[in-house]
């Protein structure tokens, strides 16, 4: 098991190198000259040239690549072109809101989706099942920003029970303020994952309910509720957890939109700003950072399988 973890962590190194090279090439080959953008509309050709030299954009592409990798190896993601701050510092500053938003979304999603999916599986074919599945389809279909604005309109502007936007750190303003500001973004971001995970849970639990050991549990005289809790859910867990893991990875896209809609100063906003400004070092740093998080989550998901199923051993 420990050996497996070490192996998996070592295996992230080549993956990260490939991601780094890919990111590097993708941005270099994309149209648009960052030096021209930085220099602004009134810059002369000399100005642009000076900035190009400053950024090292005149070096042959292989030299640029070598420098980039050497820099990464030192844990340095470079310096932002506009703010002149190290990219690691920028990410560090913006990490907290995003991390907390992601955590609250996942928690809320799991708490809602798993019971809902289980109920639908148990009552398969009934109106409850159809209602859950209807919600599921609707949840998939509504874009995040539309949902966000609808929620703001109803809950904040009409009913005035929640703030329209913004972020209040729990460490500065306390939990209550934090929670009030977090409710709407969490709801907005969760809906699609609730839809996805409820569906997956339903399919998985429904399959498990056909198994012989569920029949055995009935033959013991066990109640249906305990059969679901004790026998079905744990056996259904592996595919559900896999989808939760995938959901966390997909969440990166949702975070960008949600943070924009609710004006939360997190990594999603940083992505958006960096892309609009063609701030190459920041974009590269963020992609690398997200890839790393993704790999880490995958590892955690794989390891969590052993908690649910004793037959899985690494």
């Amino acid at each position, binding site marked *: 098991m420990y*050996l497996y973890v070490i192996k998996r962590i070592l295996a992230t190194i080549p993956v990260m190198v490939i991601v780094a090279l890919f990111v590097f090439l993708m941005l270099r080959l994309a149209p648009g000259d960052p030096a021209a953008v930085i220099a602004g509309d009134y810059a002369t050709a000399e100005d642009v040239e000076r900035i190009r030299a400053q950024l090292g954009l005149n070096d042959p592409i292989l030299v640029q690549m070598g420098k980039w990798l050497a820099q990464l190896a030192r844990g340095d993601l470079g310096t932002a072109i506009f703010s002149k701050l190290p990219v690691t510092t920028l990410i560090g500053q913006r990490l907290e809101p995003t991390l907390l938003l992601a955590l609250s979304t996942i928690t809320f999603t799991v708490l809602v989706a798993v019971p809902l999916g289980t109920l639908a599986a148990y009552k398969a074919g009934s109106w409850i099942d159809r209602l859950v599945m209807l919600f599921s389809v609707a949840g998939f279909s509504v874009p995040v920003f539309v949902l966000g604005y609808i929620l703001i309109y109803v809950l904040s502007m009409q009913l005035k029970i929640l703030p329209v936007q913004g972020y209040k750190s729990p460490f500065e303003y306390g939990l209550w303020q934090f929670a009030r500001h977090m409710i709407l973004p969490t709801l907005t971001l969760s809906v699609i994952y609730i839809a996805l995970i409820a569906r997956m849970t339903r399919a998985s639990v429904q399959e498990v309910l056909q198994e012989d050991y569920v029949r055995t*549990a009935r033959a013991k*005289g066990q109640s249906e509720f305990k059969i679901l809790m004790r026998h079905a859910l744990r056996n259904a867990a592996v595919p559900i957890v896999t989808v939760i893991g995938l959901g966390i990875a997909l969440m990166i896209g949702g975070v960008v939109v949600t943070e924009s809609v609710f004006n939360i100063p997190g990594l999603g906003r940083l992505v958006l700003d960096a892309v609009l400004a063609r701030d190459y070092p920041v974009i590269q740093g963020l992609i690398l950072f997200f890839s790393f998080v993704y790999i880490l989550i995958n590892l955690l998901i794989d390891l969590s399988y052993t908690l649910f*199923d004793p037959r899985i051993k690494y």
Partner: protein
Amino acid sequence: MSVQDSKPVLEITGLTVRLPEGADREFAIEDVSLSVARGEVVCVVGESGSGKSVTAFTVMGLIPKKDLVPVAGSILLQGEDLLKKSDRQMRALRGEKMAMVFQEPMTALNPVIKVGDQIAELLEIHTNMSGSARKKRVIEAMDDVSLPDPKTMYNSYPHQLSGGQRQRIMIAMALALEPGLLIADEPTTALDVTTQAEVLALIKDIQRRHGMGVMFITHDFGVVADIADRVVVMQNGKVVEQGSRDEILRNPTHPYTKMLIGSVPSLTPPDRPEPEVAEIALEAHHLNKTYGSRGFLTKGRVVHAAQDVELIVRRGETLGVVGESGSGKSTVARCIVRLIDPTSGDITIDGANIATMPERELRPYRKEIQIVFQDPYRSLNPRRTVGQSIVEGPMNYGLGAAEALARAEELMRVVGLAPEALDRFPHQFSGGQRQRICIARALAMEPKVLIADEAVSALDVSVQSQVLRLLHDVRERFDLAMLFITHDLRVAAQICDRIMVMQHGVVVEEGRTAEVYANPQHPYTQSLLAAAPGREMDFAQFA
């Protein structure tokens, strides 16, 4: 037995269960009456679709309520009518007053819960014992079914136990509250023959000690002969005959019972003429197959699935390969067909060594060796007509569509099916018919060697005997060399000229079938023969 005169534990009277609309018949079971007394083992025998399992599941209240509805009759468990009980009352009775052991102990146990806890769950539901008292009782129950070291095994998961141990866990679970009635649904069918003998002896022993009534569902007359006090024979949802074991087995009156018993292959091989020494169709020498996981940083664990296997099959001859699960018999078959690649050794057919031949050179030889698998339900593509399945092989080898179709029609007649049925899909056929189609499919390639890998194991006895006869006929007719893989010593006795016994990947004994059965040399062969259920009964007398 001693207490048979007392009131029955279970008394089913006129039980009728309706099937959902659109089924092939109106009732799953109709007017079924039977009873089980204390201390008595009643075997309910029948082929698939006879309604024996529906009867058992209706007693337990485990039938899907939407699809199967009891419409008439009564089920008295120790005097109480189960059909009048609410769900809640049934739950209280299940596990405490009546318990059930299922066919497949691997899937009947929850894979992610410790086996001890699964037994303890029963006590948790029906008693208010403390945690430690429950654990103590579970260990006693495990001890009672002769599980080794129950204290340690309490914490095992099902996949860490053998099939026999898992079934013992199921039995311990069923017996933990000493129910009056035990229903056993084909409890030994999924087990190897030596394990089966042990589990049967265990059920018999426990039933005697605890004085339970046992309703034992089975399709195997060997098992009936070993365990039954009384026998109930079912066909198409109806009871056709019931009586004491000896009455039914020695003096069956109903034609269906006679036919069933007559279909059970005898353990005594028939007299066979010494075969003339024909041309060798297939030989294998020093055949090895090892599975190993040698990974980066991990130490490899090597399993010898087949070790130094030697075999020769001549044209017109059947060589049986018998053994229990894990003996390597199927590995040998799959290596010879090159469905898996042997690790080393030679396989010679038509003078060519195909053991390690690359796929491109192997192709012309592939058609020479054809295989028929165990499960006819899964070995035909459900989305293609059987005609398409049969002509596909020959057409891959360049036969024109018209000729291939003509050959398929001819073969349908050979296997006893109408050529018109070529346009139908597999689900429109019964299991036995599908296996005939699989045989026709194999023969369409005009092979020299036909491998039957447990080809009759999934079939009901009456169908089994027909398919065995068919295999025998096609072997004669096409002068085939046949390799017959089976775990069933009765079947092997009837069809094999020579026999090869495998254990742990090694051939332990080989010889003419009659000689091996009459005078087994290796202790493993002896134990296999001794474990064959109902060996003292000769069923073939009604054939």
